[in-house]
């Protein structure tokens, strides 16, 4: 059958979310950010809440989020997403509020804001992109950078004796009473993207049901910062990042479900 006879509106089975604008992402080719940004839009479209959602994007490669969504997005200073989200959600408790934070944002400059928002059980969704590096500024070491991993500020690899250990922050946040849901995902295969979508849906439903803070971590690539092709970066991520940051649920409905003593 000629593709021309198949490509008709009535046969369409997949298109990008209609909540995405037509602006071109500033992300590098093959970067996981685009997939997470798109998947959030799909969930919001399917839940039909686009008129009631407010996103918050602090500094990082995702700082231009407001250019890509047709719904409302507020930009925040680096590290301050959870503080801005707290303010918006408390003034407008019926809105769905989510933050979109990198690891430099959530696990470095914004650790305090994030930790206290979680401890207060702010009824928000936190989307956390862990790519083990400061992508936007050219690939400096982040708290999440793996042991031995090379970045521009640890060109010989991260030495844990002088630079500290990789910070596995979501299991720490999971131990706070205000947090109801913590889960860790990736976007390196279509199946993983579909799983992430389910998790994001759960997180927004938790917010609707006023259950407290939901955190969805995505272990992602920064192929530019890591100095690899997109395919090689994804393979490196599976081999190395997933050992330190294994995928799966960490806390569900307020109960810790991850074995904290399992080797990592």
């Amino acid at each position, binding site marked *: *059958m000629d593709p021309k006879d*198949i*490509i008709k509106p009535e*046969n369409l089975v997949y298109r990008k979310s209609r909540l995405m604008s037509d602006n071109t992402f500033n992300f590098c*080719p093959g970067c996981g950010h*685009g*997939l997470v940004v798109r998947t959030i839009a799909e969930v919001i479209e399917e839940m039909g809440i686009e008129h009631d959602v407010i996103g918050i994007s602090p500094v990082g490669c995702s700082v231009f989020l407001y250019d890509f969504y047709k719904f409302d997005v507020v930009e925040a200073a680096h590290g301050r997403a959870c503080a801005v989200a707290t303010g918006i959600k408390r003034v407008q408790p019926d809105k769905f509020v989510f933050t979109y934070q990198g690891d430099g944002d959530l696990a470095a400059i914004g650790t305090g804001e994030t930790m206290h928002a979680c401890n207060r059980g702010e009824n928000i969704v936190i989307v956390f992109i862990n790519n083990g590096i400061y992508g936007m500024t050219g690939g400096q070491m982040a708290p999440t950078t793996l042991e031995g991993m090379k970045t521009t500020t640890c060109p010989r690899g991260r030495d844990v004796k002088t630079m500290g250990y990789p910070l596995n922050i979501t299991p720490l946040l999971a131990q706070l009473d205000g947090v109801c849901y913590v889960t860790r995902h990736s976007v390196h295969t*279509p199946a993983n993207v579909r799983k992430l979508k389910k998790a994001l849906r759960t997180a927004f439903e938790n917010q609707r049901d006023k259950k407290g803070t939901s955190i969805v971590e995505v272990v992602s690539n920064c192929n530019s910062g890591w100095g690899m092709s997109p395919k090689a970066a994804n393979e490196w991520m599976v081999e190395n990042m997933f050992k330190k940051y294994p995928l799966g649920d960490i806390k569900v409905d307020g109960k810790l479900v991850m074995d904290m003593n399992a080797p990592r």
Partner: protein
Amino acid sequence: MAKIQGAIVVETDRCKGCELCMYACPQNVIAMSDEVNSITRNYAYMAHPEACTGCTNCATICPDGYISVYRVKVEE
């Protein structure tokens, strides 16, 4: 017997050439062009359209959302 036949549309002039769709296709439908688009990238295209099942894997993995998928059931 009914057969499923798919087809994709790539926004070839915006494709960033990351190749992730090509590797995600279980039917090896997709290849990268020899020529480059206006942003100087080799873009993804259907090299073997007859093999496409419309499974949506390529579109699901395109970071930039440049692929749409169409699918029909063909009675044989």
